């Protein structure tokens, strides 16, 4: 309904009563039937009494008897008009008497009309024809404005969405390209490091057993002791063994406790004092290898994220996609205790990048919740498992389950209801780039796999559970 003043609405009601109630001047149309084709002549102006009409602009200038199928020719919908609206207004008032659009009935429609021979009623009281019909012109003008504004808003929204999806696609391509280049570089680093370590070890082995041993202890060091843990031991070795700080540090890595130290031979310890650099060299190669592995993981993950959209393939290892997602968020997660428990899962048919979107979004959200809340000892736990839904024959029976929980604040009940809706957020600030596309995307993806999402939140823990049907039984194969 076009908003108009009461005066005009009253005038329109009078016009309807006086001019558009003549049973002799009505037309009835079946759904899809043409009222008038573009370019055809008509001396009438219609008012829609019941039903609705659609107007098309046709490029080939010829209207067919019936509404053509979408694919036929090039035509653009101009507007739709329902009861109370007027059509052929311009052709009538301009005295051009030619319709510039094609008008079809959308449903069973009844129209009343006047033409240029219709006599003027109550001229003395209501003025001449133009004066009487001014409200129709105003109504038409208002309707057209309304359409144009609506169209402009739609167009802007469409442009915005287009721009966003183009950006996303560009970003995807870009990151896939970078990932590819980096992959080769990281491959060289990783492979050559291994090669160098093997060679060095062989050379040392042939020259000096103690040095070979020292090298290997550095290369295979698995003690992850912090500087503060090591410091007292380092000082102790410095003083008691008359070692340099550097050598003592190496010895502290090899023998962090008194018991470890007692197992070492006197000759080995003496060699540490002299040749601690050989341990460092082994340790450097170990660090290189670890850094290369980390980089490989990130490159892999970025490649997955940037992969062109939804190509679902069989044989997808869900656990691997979870690991990839965690790799991608590694840098953020280092401030959070991460607990993982991965049970091997049956392969499913899926798009890896979609699965990764699910995991990264949920983990990212968990991280944001913990950070915003400044939770003490923040913790995120991720586990995988298999879930059987028994006795519900309508639903798939076997699911792979990924559970992601955190010890952040409780999600209020009113938020739980809205959390999966698009545009719902409690994060008013901050600029999060790329990954955090939100839980509405998670929902959409999970739905498309015929899966389900569970969410429980208590003061102690918030848990998201994602269930996806497996290949064996249903759909996803």
């Amino acid at each position, binding site marked *: 309904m076009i908003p108009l003043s009461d005066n005009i609405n009253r005038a329109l009601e009078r016009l309807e009563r006086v001019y558009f109630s003549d049973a002799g001047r009505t037309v009835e149309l079946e759904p899809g039937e043409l009222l008038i084709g573009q370019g055809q002549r008509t001396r009438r102006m219609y008012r829609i009494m019941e039903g609705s009409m659609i107007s098309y602009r046709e490029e080939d200038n010829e209207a067919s008897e019936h509404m053509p199928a979408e694919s036929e020719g090039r035509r653009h919908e101009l507007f739709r008009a329902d009861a109370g609206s007027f059509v052929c207004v311009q052709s009538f008032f301009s005295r051009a008497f030619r319709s510039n659009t094609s008008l079809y009935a959308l449903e069973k429609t009844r129209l009343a009309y006047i033409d240029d021979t219709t006599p003027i009623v109550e001229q003395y009281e209501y003025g001449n024809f133009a004066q009487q019909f001014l409200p129709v012109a105003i109504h038409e003008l208002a309707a057209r404005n309304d359409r144009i504004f609506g169209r402009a808003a739609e167009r802007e929204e469409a442009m915005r969405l287009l721009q966003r999806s183009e950006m996303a696609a560009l970003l995807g391509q870009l990151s896939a390209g970078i990932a590819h280049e980096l992959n080769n570089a990281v491959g060289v680093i990783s492979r050559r490091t291994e090669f160098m370590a093997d060679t060095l070890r062989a050379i040392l082995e042939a020259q000096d057993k103690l040095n070979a041993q020292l090298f290997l202890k550095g290369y295979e060091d698995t003690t992850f002791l*912090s*500087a*503060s843990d090591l*410091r007292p031991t380092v000082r102790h070795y410095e003083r008691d063994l008359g070692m340099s*700080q550097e050598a003592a540090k190496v010895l502290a890595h090899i023998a962090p406790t008194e018991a470890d130290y007692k197992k070492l031979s006197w000759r080995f310890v003496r060699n540490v004092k002299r040749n601690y650099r050989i341990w460092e060299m082994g340790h450097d190669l170990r660090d290189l290898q670890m850094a290369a592995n980390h980089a490989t993981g990130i490159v892999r993950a970025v490649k997955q994220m940037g992969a062109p959209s939804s190509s679902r393939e069989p044989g997808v290892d869900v656990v691997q996609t979870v690991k990839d997602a965690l790799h991608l968020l590694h840098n953020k997660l280092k401030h959070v205790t991460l607990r993982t428990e991965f049970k091997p899962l049956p392969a499913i048919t899926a798009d890896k990048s979609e699965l990764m979107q699910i995991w990264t979004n949920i983990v990212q959200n968990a991280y944001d919740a913990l950070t915003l809340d400044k939770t003490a000892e923040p913790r995120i736990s991720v586990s995988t498992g298999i879930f059987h839904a028994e006795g519900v024959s309508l639903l798939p029976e076997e699911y792979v389950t990924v559970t992601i929980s955190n010890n952040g604040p409780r999600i209020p009940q009113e938020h739980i209801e809205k959390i999966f809706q698009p545009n719902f957020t409690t994060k008013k600030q901050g600029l999060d780039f790329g990954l955090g596309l939100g839980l509405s995307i998670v929902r959409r993806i999970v739905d498309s796999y015929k899966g389900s999402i569970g969410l429980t939140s208590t003061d102690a823990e918030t848990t998201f559970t994602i269930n996806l049907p497996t290949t064996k039984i249903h759909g996803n194969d």
Partner: protein
Amino acid sequence: METINIICVDDQQEVLDSVMRDLRPLTPLVRLEEASGVADCLKLMEQIDEDGDYVAIVISDQVMPGESGTELLGKVASDPRFAKTRKVLLTGQATHADTINAINDGQINNYIEKPWQPEKILAIVKRLLTLYILDAGIDYKEYMPILDQQTLFSNLR
């Protein structure tokens, strides 16, 4: 003889290892210490002070679990025992606001971006060490081989 300490603070052991290696030419005339976080660094400084030794320079990462590098350097700056201690921020991901805070609150003497060049960090540390030794009134002759000659001479003149 007194011990002069240089402390490097980072939550990533690989980074600490690298800085330690780059600064190794300064040993054994000065002692290089590493700390895995803000609390650990403050504890270590307390210990050094109790032993009657010096903390010449603190080189800190910005983004760490718990308190940030800027917060650490701010605390060091406001502690009269460490008034002469030089402060360096070594970081790859400080925001604009972090940087402003580092200058205003942390009163840093230098800002080094990751990844760094070994010669550059060594040169910066030598220069700051020279200034510290002069400032603290320590006999600089003992440390001649690792001091920045230019800084030394321009300050002695």
